[in-house]
């Protein structure tokens, strides 16, 4: 039988598919992982995947590479749709030399970035193994070129959503990719991230550590390197869908709307009666947001501030909320970084911001000094100051000091709506603390120091009152918890997606970090 050119094309195409590589795919499954193509099938809407570079194979130019066989050169690339939205996807194939990047594979990755830039569609990276393919990389002829993809990824950053799912070993190269993504999810037990794996660490420093301890999903989620850790690949891929569902396909597009859905709880009962009693601010978030729309990011990292994408009346909103359950809700360095990154992501894609304020201040102590809180807190102010999206604030309880300002309190960053709950206490610092510091001598000199202190404290307490905050017009209104959602929805419906910038001509501001 004569092989026609079409037959030959079909044969070549089929050779790169999972069915033609049953042994390699079985090994991948044995590791508890899906194949690169199965992942694409799960993620994309049925029948929408169009592959490019499927016929690529390894460059066999150097001596000893004659037998190198690398279907698609280790990375499956193409375009498709996720919940009706076009995306570019690259899925690294661990069964091909551990997912390593060959020379042509690198060109395919660059092509993905180029498509995302030209088409203005999100870039989805499904990472599993990788790094430069050593067989090709130990050659100055190739390596001296360096790698242009990082430049491309920086150009994509903030223009289209860039997301990464870490689905296997991710030390080195994959972590470099993920570092430039604005959302990273990892799978527990199989995924790792870091600059170098245990073998290199041991060779370089002598430290012995397992890959899970060094860079496993739970470790990186706690450190804030990953935004989310999940148990299964299916959840990881679905989390990309959920994340993308809140964002436009590119920065200049309208936000994706959804049907409004009433929350299932009401915020009325969340606030405890005692001012010294902690509560879970996520209950407030859940009671303000549309049902089933709260998507918390970096929940395990800096839990003293909650960052979540939610919907209000069907519109995406980014919530930044102090969490009294942890460190009293105070802002430490990790919390500032987490909130600053989140504000940056929301601002890039036009997602309005909602600040739920219950902050006793910045966390004081040597740990804060060591972790550069002075600058980390500056970055939060910086991101907030350059943001152009609508922003709203609600003071739930404490709004103390500079942290109140860093949480967009009052008029600090010209919030489109500044509200306070009847439980709000807005002032420069806690009354007790302020009296002890500022009136130390006065108290010590009094005939009855305790009585003098109590007198001062009660005097100042009367000045800390949400009604006074509204009388001074630091907030627009004091509202009951149950009125809050409708007030926010009303403000959200009026605010334009972007404020027109009236800034002076410059290239960019200089981030404190």
């Amino acid at each position, binding site marked *: 039988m004569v092989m026609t050119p079409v037959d030959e094309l079909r044969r070549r195409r089929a050779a790169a598919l999972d069915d033609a590589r049953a042994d390699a795919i079985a090994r991948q499954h044995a590791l508890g992982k899906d194949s690169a193509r199965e992942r694409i099938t799960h993620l994309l809407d049925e029948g929408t995947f169009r592959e490019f570079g499927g016929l690529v194979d390894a460059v066999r130019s150097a001596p000893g590479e004659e037998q190198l066989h690398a279907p698609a050169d280790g990375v499956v690339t193409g375009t498709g749709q996720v919940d009706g*939205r076009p995306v570019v996807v690259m899925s690294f194939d661990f069964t091909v030399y551990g997912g390593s990047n060959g020379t042509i594979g690198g060109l395919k990755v660059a092509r993905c970035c180029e498509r995302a830039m030209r088409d203005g569609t999100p870039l989805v990276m499904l990472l599993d193994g990788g790094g430069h393919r050593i067989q090709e990389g130990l050659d100055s002829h190739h390596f001296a070129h360096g790698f242009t993809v990082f430049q491309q990824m920086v150009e994509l950053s903030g223009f289209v959503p860039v997301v990464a799912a870490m689905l296997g070993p991710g030390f080195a190269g994959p972590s470099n990719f993920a570092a430039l993504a604005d959302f990273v999810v990892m799978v527990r037990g199989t995924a790792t991230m870091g600059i170098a794996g245990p073998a290199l660490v041991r060779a370089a420093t002598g430290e012995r550590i397992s890959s899970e301890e060094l860079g496993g999903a739970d470790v990186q989620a706690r450190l804030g390197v990953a935004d989310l850790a999940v*148990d299964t690949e299916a959840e990881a891929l*679905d989390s990309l869908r959920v994340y993308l569902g809140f964002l436009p396909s590119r920065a200049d597009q309208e936000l994706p709307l959804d049907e409004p859905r009433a929350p299932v709880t009401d915020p009325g*009962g969340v606030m405890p009666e005692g001012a010294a009693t902690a509560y879970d601010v996520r209950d407030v978030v859940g009671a303000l947001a549309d049902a*089933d729309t709260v998507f918390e990011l970096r929940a*395990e990292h800096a839990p003293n501030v909650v960052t979540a994408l939610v919907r209000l009346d069907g519109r995406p909103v980014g919530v930044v909320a102090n969490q009294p359950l942890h*460190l009293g*809700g105070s802002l430490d360095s990790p919390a500032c970084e987490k909130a600053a990154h989140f504000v940056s992501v929301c601002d890039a894609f036009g997602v309005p911001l909602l600040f739920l304020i219950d902050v006793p201040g910045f966390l004081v*102590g040597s740990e804060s000094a060591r972790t550069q809180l002075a600058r980390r807190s500056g970055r939060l102010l910086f991101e907030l100051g350059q943001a152009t999206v609508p922003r709203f604030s609600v003071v739930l309880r404490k709004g103390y000091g500079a942290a109140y300002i860093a949480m967009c309190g009052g008029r600090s960053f010209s919030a489109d709506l500044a509200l306070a709950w009847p439980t709000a206490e807005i002032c420069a610092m806690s009354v007790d603390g302020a009296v002890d510091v500022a009136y130390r001598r006065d108290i010590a000199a009094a005939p009855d120091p305790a009585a003098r202190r109590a007198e001062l404290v009660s005097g100042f307490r009367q000045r800390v009152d949400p009604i006074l905050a509204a009388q001074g017009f630091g907030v627009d209104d004091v509202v009951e918890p149950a009125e809050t959602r409708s007030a926010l929805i009303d403000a959200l419906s009026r605010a334009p997606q972007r404020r027109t910038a009236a800034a002076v001509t410059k290239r960019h501001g200089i981030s404190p970090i």
Partner: protein
Amino acid sequence: MLTKLLVANRGEIAVRVLRACAEQGIESVAVHTAPDAGAMHVRLADEAVPVADYLDRDALLDAALRFGADAVHPGYGFLAEDAAFARAVGAAGLVFVGPPAEAVAAMGDKVVARELASAAGVPVLPAVTTSDPEAVRALGAEHGWPVLIKAAHGGGGRGMRLARGQAEVGTALTAATAEARSAFGDGTVYAERYLAGPRHVEVQVLADAHGTVAVLGDRDCSVQRRHQKLVEEAPAPDLADGMRAAMAAAACRLAGAVGYRGAGTVEFLVEGDSFYFLEMNTRIQVEHPVTELVFGVDLVHEQLRIAAGARLGPLPSLPRGHAVECRIVAEDPSNGFLPVAGQVRELTVPWAPGIRFDTGYEPGDTVPPQYDGLIAKLVAWGPSRSAALHRARTALAAVVVTGVPTTAPAAAAVLAHPGFTSGPVTTGWFEDVVAPTLAEEPEPAGAAREAGGAWIAGRFHRVPQQPRPGVEPGRLRDPAPQRGARSGPGRGRAAPRTAGTGDGRLISSAMQGVVSGIEVAVGERVTAGRIVARVEAMKLENPVHAATEGVVEAVCVRLGQAVAAGEILLVLAAATVDGTAS
């Protein structure tokens, strides 16, 4: 006649006893720790005394004497089965509402209790009361494997290990001994035949100080999770008349043999045609209301009368109808029954015929993290078992508790399960059959079909569908069925909210601060999520939770000590959960 009684307990049982006092015209004194300062039992008592700990014998006794009480009711748990406390109460010239200290001590030692039971002609499981591995192997060889090794002074599953064959005897003995020593301060263990699928049936006894012992029928408490009873009923269903009578007689003989006084419960394991002595609880039981409803006897009133020296009056010999009790505990059944503390916002009960609701909480009260989270007991009576179950199901569906998750859905699942409605179940049934179905949260109705979405970490997230450019509307694929099928395994896993870090065994402070509370003691068993310490910083107290369950091996810090972020506060050792119920 008692004139003034101190109730050395909290929660619903304290409320139950305080109300009985009021009914009998006995003045009452409540005790409370700091977290319970405004609790319901404190509000109900004539007087209330703060104590540091419900286990502080001296403080309780001191409070009783200072407030002029002439009797002390221990409730259940805490010091209810503490012979030293019973003895100290008596030595101080007060009446202990319970059995003589000797009976408490004898029944508290499982080896002694077993011997006494055996001597009284009560069937016991084949056992050896030694830690000699050869004897244990011989026991297994003669009566079959597995063999259960238990702590002599234990309870609640602590210090229990299962040996499934000859080879496992050595390690099981070592582990059980070590655990018994660390948990109960006494490494004595014994080994007995292990029953694979027993029922838990118990007999209620009442004995007065004049030698009269009466039996008030039986209860079935086989619906358990990790030895914690969830649903109890009286009488035990489907028990042959002969066995029921034999168990009653055995319980009566044992109570007589130990010189029992007051209300007590003799617990048995039932398998096939045989029943075996498990243990005797020398106190009022949580599930006493089911017996009260079917016998028309107020057990707490009887306790108080007997303690005052009264003789038992005539008691009914047969139960009327059937009663079932559902425990409503502040635990999250969809999240591995994780204990959850918090404020009870709403607490409403449908008032319907045959419904009784015993609770220690009113709306606005807080379930503190330090104590057992039993919020309430819903008890239903009906003329038949099916009628009682029907009333319980209907009532449970209308019970509203908000603010904290509760075990009510788990109890509802039990009551609705054909395996339970059609007949008796065994002690492993709930964990094998019902518990796995509770972990999955139901998907919000219609949400997946409506607009798509995804399940991540046990939570549903909506994902809106974008109109596909360049595709005619008629060709739009309906994504619903595929999305529905995608929701994969791994649901229901929620990260424990904990300020502790590390592998769970080492509990460290997440922050720089001052230790403002140490909530546990060495040897104490803690459940995952339990608050073990508090660290104060920025003028707010931060609870430190145990990430896993375990037994406290060491407390590394003192109250008031300044700690750095990451500094170890406590060390936990693993806890075993094998074994039979108690």
